């Protein structure tokens, strides 16, 4: 992302939990290292939900400053930092689109159309650390194993902030079908992600 000074390279060797520990003592370089590790991922996760570059930027700022001001809100025993961070981002982003109302929920545009509204993503993951990029590939591979009609519903719920009823309406499917597809899709995803989830539960 940018040149790092020699004293900052020391921080690249620290794991997330160690960096977070340092935030408690107001270590700005640890904070910078965390941002360099996850800034792009948080921005991308926010952008995926809100689909507006300016709002996504504001959210990145809000989320990172919250971490800086309240590092104790992350509790290591409850899971990995990156999963916590992206969940916080997703939840905050969904709150945002819900509070802004339906205008931001893209009732009409298909996911493909929405994708075109945004600048092209970095296809080779140069904006992620090697480790993150590897994990991301595993998760994408797991998602690819799930039938499209199940994946679509899961993504509408998680990234679109839609309820089961809203999804049923939007896709003109019976509510029962939507519920079943969520269950089946999540079961398959869980099986496909078993190695990753083991990591979460370590």
């Amino acid at each position: 992302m940018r040149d790092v000074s020699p004293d900052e390279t020391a921080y690249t060797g620290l794991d997330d939990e160690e960096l977070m520990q340092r935030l408690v003592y107001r270590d700005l370089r640890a904070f910078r290292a965390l941002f360099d590790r996850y800034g792009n991922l948080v921005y991308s996760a926010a952008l995926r939900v809100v689909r507006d570059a300016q709002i996504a930027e504001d959210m990145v700022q809000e989320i990172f400053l919250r971490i800086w001001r309240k590092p104790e809100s992350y509790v290591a025993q409850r899971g990995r930092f990156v999963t916590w961070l992206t969940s916080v981002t997703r939840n905050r982003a969904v709150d945002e689109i819900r509070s802004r109302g339906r205008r931001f929920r893209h009732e009409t545009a298909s996911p493909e159309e929405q994708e075109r509204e945004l600048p092209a993503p970095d296809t080779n993951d140069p904006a992620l650390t090697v480790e993150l990029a590897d994990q991301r590939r595993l998760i994408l591979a797991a998602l690819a194993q799930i039938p499209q009609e199940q994946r679509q519903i899961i993504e509408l719920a998680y990234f679109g902030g839609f309820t089961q009823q809203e999804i049923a309406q939007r896709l003109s499917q019976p509510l029962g079908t939507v519920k079943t597809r969520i269950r089946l899709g999540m079961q398959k995803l869980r099986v496909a992600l078993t190695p990753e989830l083991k990591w979460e539960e370590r």
Partner: protein
Amino acid sequence: MMDCAEAIELLDAHALGALDKREAAQVERHVAGCLSCWEELGRSQRTAALLSMSVPIHKAPLQVRERIMARAERDGVVVRGPSLLQRLRPNWRTTAGALGFAVVSALVFSSFLQVQMSNLRGDKNELGQQLSTAASELEQQKQIVAVLSASDNRKISVQPTSLSSQAESVYNWSRENSAGFIVCHDFPPLSAGRVYQVWFTTSDSVEPVATFVPQGGGCQIPMDMSRLSWRPEGIGISVEPEGGSASPSSRWFAYAAFERSPEGGSGRGGGGGGGVDMVLAAIGP
């Protein structure tokens, strides 16, 4: 009341945030009292959380980084009530020593004065009441400063049991002082007639410690531990009817287990005063 079979059908949807408010509340209520569904929900939530890493990756604009870092640098000295106390503590133990303590005492006292001055602007008839409240607040602040400045001060994060909760609480204590306190942020408001209740626990007993209703989501609850005759193994917070309960009537809203100090594992602490003897190895400088 929803049963397990009904709840299980909805756990994945709940983890994805796809339930309407009413259904979500029903699931939360069921899960609060059912360990197996609670664990199952945790698995669903962890699965859902990984979805966030599947998003197309975009580079955050460079100016975002600069803006965030500038803001962080600027508010490097911003203080926030009790957290300030927690943050200053390592300083006064190492370099700043007595100076750090004086800073904290001055801050506490000045906030006390501000409260009093604004109180005095109120109805004179309430003056007596206000002063007595002020006196007890000052007593509480003194106890908190005493705990923080004790050489054996320890703290532990009392974690919400629901992954989706934003609530935070930290328990600080000093065995020497037989005292501790809980500080909390972002606790959800309760319905009328309900309070949060703090408990000490062992594997086979619980001891009620205090009840509280958060103000603006926050709390600062001093706790006297001199009457405890046994060493607690954990600290829990549950939601109870007003006035508190004799034993917890719902699942823990938040909980933390203490780790025993090596020298405190046996033989000490059973005899009354200063009964708490625990060290959280992973926390503290």
